[in-house]
């Protein structure tokens, strides 16, 4: 079930009514309702894969309880490894089996051995990378004694399968989300209004920005051999806005829905395209995944302690694993590697924590130096996105070669309708970026925008967003890109 469909609208209206009007006074009933609704939500896509969530839930719940019963470090470590192997094992089988099998066969062939290659027709369960990481955070935190093991299976199951963020995050820490299932939820007017605004901003980001940009990005990437340099550059830029609008849009909707239910989820995007260097970009892009890797991989590996070599090694490991997390393809690994290379100069010069504030807070426009840094960072990001979007490394290299070797100007491959669409999409992106810029002191573009203006002006602005959403809503309901991860 997708957030931007009528199916979800009806589903949520019924759920909301039951949650706040029928089960308002009993959190246990509310949790049962969340659990049932979450399984319906996920099963709507493919009910067979509910068993995977159930297995993951039962394994981690049981292991958590067992860890809580002992203080023996060796036993706790054994239980933790069991959890890691079970979760990562499921993830590897469904997501990476064919990748490893194909590459192993290629490797053997390279050294002169013939191997029978086994590939399976495996369907990738939606959101498996997200909920696997979320449950892993639970067992690791219990192992580290940062969190008491949950003794309530319903609560724990609801935490693992919480439908607003089940399939594409934010990847919540158990220590942040799980206790909220044990707390009485009250409907807060201000939270609900702000949550509704965040949903609206998420829908606008997805339906208007991501889907419009995606149409053009697909046209250009799918015909990249025919396109000139200008079109190829535009294609990469449009993809940058497609992936941002798509993923940030999903996160905003997920957070907004949770707020309507009395839950607080972590911020996942903080205006990443206004970053002044790559380190800042990664503090603002997919925050829940970046911090997950920081807390559960980078720091255990030694983090930034130790020698320079260790720092560099850990940085490369984090970025490459992050790339691989996105998909079983060398293009994602190269995308991660490229970001690590971007990051390296900042790390070596100790400037990776230089830009931690809001760019030019309280100012109407950025300083020229900041503006140039933002543009520079954006160019690097767009370049890396080419690898992320390309079908293969060869495709990416040909695409990049095309940018540098073909002509500029209006592309004869594009017809009048395509050119009109490019112009309209460009205007929409300018509108979107302007809103994000003037709202950059909030947690999402709309939160603080026009907040001191009269209500009619604010509502008029929100109506413009509704108008554009309904004007550009696509009937084929393009799914969210990050579902595949």
């Amino acid at each position, binding site marked *: 079930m997708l957030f931007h469909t009528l199916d979800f609208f009806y589903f949520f209206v019924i759920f909301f009514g039951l949650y706040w009007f029928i089960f308002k006074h009993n959190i246990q009933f509310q949790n049962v309702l969340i659990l049932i609704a979450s399984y319906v939500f996920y099963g709507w896509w493919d009910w067979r894969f509910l068993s995977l969530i159930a297995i993951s839930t039962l394994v981690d719940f049981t292991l958590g309880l067992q860890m809580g019963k002992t203080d023996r470090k060796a036993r706790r470590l054994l239980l933790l490894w069991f959890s890691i192997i079970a979760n990562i094992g499921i993830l590897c089988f469904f997501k990476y089996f064919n990748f490893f099998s194909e590459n192993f066969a290629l490797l053997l062939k390279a050294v002169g051995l013939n191997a029978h290659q086994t590939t399976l027709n495996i369907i990738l369960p939606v959101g498996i990378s997200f909920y696997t990481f979320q449950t892993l955070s639970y067992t690791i935190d219990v192992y580290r004694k940062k969190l008491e093991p949950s003794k309530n299976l319903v609560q724990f199951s609801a935490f693992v399968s919480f439908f607003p963020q089940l399939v594409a995050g934010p990847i919540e820490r158990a220590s942040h989300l799980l206790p909220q299932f044990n707390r009485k939820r009250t409907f807060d007017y201000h939270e609900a*209004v702000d949550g509704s605004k965040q949903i609206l901003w998420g829908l606008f980001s997805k339906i208007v920005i991501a889907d419009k940009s995606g149409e053009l990005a697909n046209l250009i990437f799918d015909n990249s051999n025919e396109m000139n340099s200008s079109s190829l550059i535009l294609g990469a830029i449009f993809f940058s806005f497609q992936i941002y609008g798509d993923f940030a849009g999903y996160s905003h909707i997920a957070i907004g829905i949770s707020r309507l239910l009395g839950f607080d989820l972590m911020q996942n995007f903080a205006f990443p395209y206004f970053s002044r260097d790559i380190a800042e970009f990664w503090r603002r892009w997919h925050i829940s995944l970046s911090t997950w890797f920081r807390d559960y991989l980078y720091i255990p590996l030694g983090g930034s302690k130790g020698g320079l070599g260790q720092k560099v090694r850990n940085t490369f490991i984090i970025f490459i694993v992050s790339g691989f997390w996105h998909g079983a393809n060398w293009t994602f690994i190269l995308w991660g590697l490229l970001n690590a290379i971007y990051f390296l100069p900042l790390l070596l010069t100790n400037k990776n924590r230089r830009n931690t504030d809001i760019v030019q807070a309280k100012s109407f426009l950025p300083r020229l130096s900041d503006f140039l840094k933002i543009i520079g960072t954006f160019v690097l990001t767009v370049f890396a996105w080419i690898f992320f979007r390309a079908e293969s490394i060869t495709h990416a290299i040909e695409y990049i070669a095309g940018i540098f070797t073909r002509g500029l100007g209006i592309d004869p491959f594009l017809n009048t309708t395509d050119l009109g*669409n490019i112009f309209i999409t460009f205007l929409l992106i300018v509108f979107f970026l302007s809103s994000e810029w003037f709202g950059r002191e909030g947690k999402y573009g709309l939160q603080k925008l026009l907040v001191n203006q009269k209500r009619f002006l604010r509502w008029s602005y929100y109506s413009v967003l509704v*108008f554009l959403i*309904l*004007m*550009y809503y696509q*009937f084929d309901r393009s799914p969210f890109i990050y579902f595949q991860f």
Partner: protein
Amino acid sequence: MWLYFKDLISFLFVCVFLYIVGIILWAQIPYSYLGANFLYRQGSYGHLNTRVKEIPNYGEVDILFVGSSRVYRGFDPRIFEKHGLKVFVLGSSSQTPLQSYVLLERYMDKLKPKTVVYDLLPSTFAITGVEPTLDLLANDQIDKYSFQMALEQNDLMVWNTLLYALAADLVGVHDKLKERQYKPEEGDTYISGGYVHKNLSFNSTANCEEDSLKWKEPLQLQTEYFIKSMNFCAKRSIRFIAINMPIANYECYSNNNILRDLVKDSLNYIDFNKEFILSDSLDYYDNYHLNNAGLKKIDSFFIQNLQNL
């Protein structure tokens, strides 16, 4: 919570008002329809605007042809007139049974035909018919049937266009267009009686398009509206003849036989593709449309066989 719902409902009122204003402004921006869920184009392809405006003064007819562009490009009233028959062609581009029914409801009492000839274009049974609905909304009157079409299709593009058409109708600009009789960019000339003439003489399409080879499941909606149209005529004791107009490269179309179940033994039915042999290249100007030579053959054949139906 009630304060939240109160604010939400108030916002929705403001939003609906501004949405209508937005649609009206949007329609004034050139090319704003590109990629958007809105398409209000008057005087577009097929001369529907002129056709429906001609009806009030046209008078009663012997035969009313109903269908898609195959019909308004396939039956020339001048040929029928020579045989003493007054006909009118009530068609629009890609017209599906839903729009055919609406047009029959709207104009049957003005044209009072003795016979209705209904073209069963197989592919129109498998589509919801957004394109012809938009054509009707922009070029024909706005009434309860406009809402019926919108409800049946429940498509944002249709609703947005209907909203604008309604606003345009209220301020009196909806029916102001004077459509050109001859459109040089399309090579189309409107001939009184609903026919659109094109001066093309040769069909060069030889290969099958991949899409036409795919089987497309007929929609229940369209089947229901076809049956409704038959019943509508039967109630008025109007003779109903179903036809399947000829197409070139017949074997390219996998949906040719979807009409078998619809066409009962009791129904008068002519499948021109089976009754008549035409040249795929010399009698058409594309796979769907007859050229002048093909049209003359088909119209004469139809007139000759009319008594036997």
